[in-house]
């Protein structure tokens, strides 16, 4: 069973992404290509939350933590059938969803509280196959901020002897936004290079090429194939940090399984 850490700054959409995976009825729809089966109570619970909260036009609360041990483990079986006559491939994944502030804190020189240490130890354990790193912002100063975090993250990865065998799927999340949607087909060039050039350069330079891939994902998706308006509304009064679905029946995420498949299969 593959262990995956889902990490990223605050409000980058980590929990909502996991909820979309768990809530396959809406998000995968009638697709015969994929099937996702929640395997434990935590993943069934987050699927229910997706239905009770996201499908009722609300957004999740920010993840908070007092100890890494109290974080839920989400376990799924993902089955992929690439072609009709070829036997489906399936793999099981276990996810830990870390609060964004824990990830952001690793760039601070005085960091070092217990949660921080637990987070680092968990992330770089030998049985972790890879990390899915979500980024969502590119406003002025963000690239610099992300770059500092990534530099520190890669140092820690090296010091934990994981530099050569930990896969990193780096994804721009919330790609339903108009400024990003058109760049989804070549995310490395049109999203990362363009919006986060320093962070991208650091990752390319310091990570073995076979261990890194760039992705564009969208948990909410767009309204229709020929109506690419984002299927989201930014909430008023929450500093633009929380978004809700605009048209619930049209909830169709984009590309949420590809990074997991690569993290597991290479």
């Amino acid at each position, binding site marked *: 069973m593959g262990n995956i850490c889902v990490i990223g700054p605050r409000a980058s959409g980590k929990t909502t992404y996991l909820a979309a995976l768990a809530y396959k009825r809406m998000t995968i729809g009638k697709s015969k290509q994929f099937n996702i089966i929640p395997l434990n109570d935590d993943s069934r619970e987050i699927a229910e939350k997706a239905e*009770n909260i996201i499908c*009722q036009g*609300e957004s999740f609360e920010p993840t908070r933590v007092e100890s890494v041990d109290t974080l839920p483990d989400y376990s799924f079986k993902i089955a992929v059938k690439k072609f009709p006559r070829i036997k489906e491939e399936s793999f099981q994944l276990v996810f830990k969803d870390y609060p964004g502030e824990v990830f952001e804190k690793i760039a601070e020189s005085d960091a070092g509280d217990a949660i921080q240490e637990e987070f680092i130890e968990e992330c770089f354990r030998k049985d972790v196959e890879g990390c899915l790193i979500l980024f969502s912002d590119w406003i002025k100063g963000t690239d610099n901020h992300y770059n500092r975090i990534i530099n520190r993250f890669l140092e820690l990865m090296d010091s934990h002897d994981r530099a050569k065998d930990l896969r990193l799927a780096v994804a721009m999340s919330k790609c339903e936004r108009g400024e990003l949607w058109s760049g989804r087909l070549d995310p490395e060039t049109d999203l990362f290079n363009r919006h986060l050039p320093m962070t991208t350069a650091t990752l390319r330079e310091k990570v073995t090429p076979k261990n890194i891939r760039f992705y564009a994902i969208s948990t909410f998706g767009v309204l229709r194939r020929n109506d690419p308006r984002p299927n989201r509304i930014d909430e008023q009064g*929450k*500093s633009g940090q929380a978004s809700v679905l605009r048209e619930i029946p049209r909830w169709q995420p984009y590309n949420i399984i590809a990074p997991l498949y690569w993290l597991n299969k290479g």
Partner: protein
Amino acid sequence: MGVIYIGDRETGKTSLAMELANPNSHYVKVTHPDYENLKVMLYDDAEGRTKATDASQALYDRALEIQVELPTGKKEILLEWLDTPGEIWRTRWQQADENQPEWQKFLGSIVDSEGILLVVPPYREIISGANREDYITQQQWCNRFERWVKFFRQDCPKVRHLVLCLNKADLFCDVNKEASRLEYSPNRSPMTWQKRNAYVMQRYFRPIQTQIEHLNKNISGLAIRCFITSIHNRKLLELPWIYLGSFLAD
């Protein structure tokens, strides 16, 4: 996970809780204690009204088990109903030596709370029909809310869901019309929570909209949702609890 249930005097907190237990329900049921028991505890038959909560004790810790019907089925919430008399919000009461133990006990309960339901009364300017002079003016209402803001910021650092209920909605709107507009259905509600909140906020909470936005930005991870409630309309009465149940139910 405890939900704190607070409000000033005479805002109708006890009546709301008692009416919630009325067996004639839609999607929210109080499964324990039952309506008759709650009525004995809270209703004064001789006076024909709910008993005023006694100020000699700041904290009434009553456990309510509530069943909420959500889209994924029926869920249970164990509600820790910490009812307080309105007096405890008076600075003079809080500062009196004899009240210190009760006040500190209350603060101790609230500091870790993640859900707070605040019941506020209507203000004079929006009331039509009833005796308007019995209610505070809009300016006083805004000033009072500012004190709540200070309280939430100082004493409730962990609150994640703050539900504001503008009570006695029958005094200021057509409750049936508003109830059908805001109605909840587990299968397909006409409005999402986000739209309900935007509508109620714009229409009824406008005088304190800036303060609400300010508070939202000041407590990290806080979501504030506005509701109108009335004991005369079951649909409106249930909405805040369904909202809280979506996040807090097991």
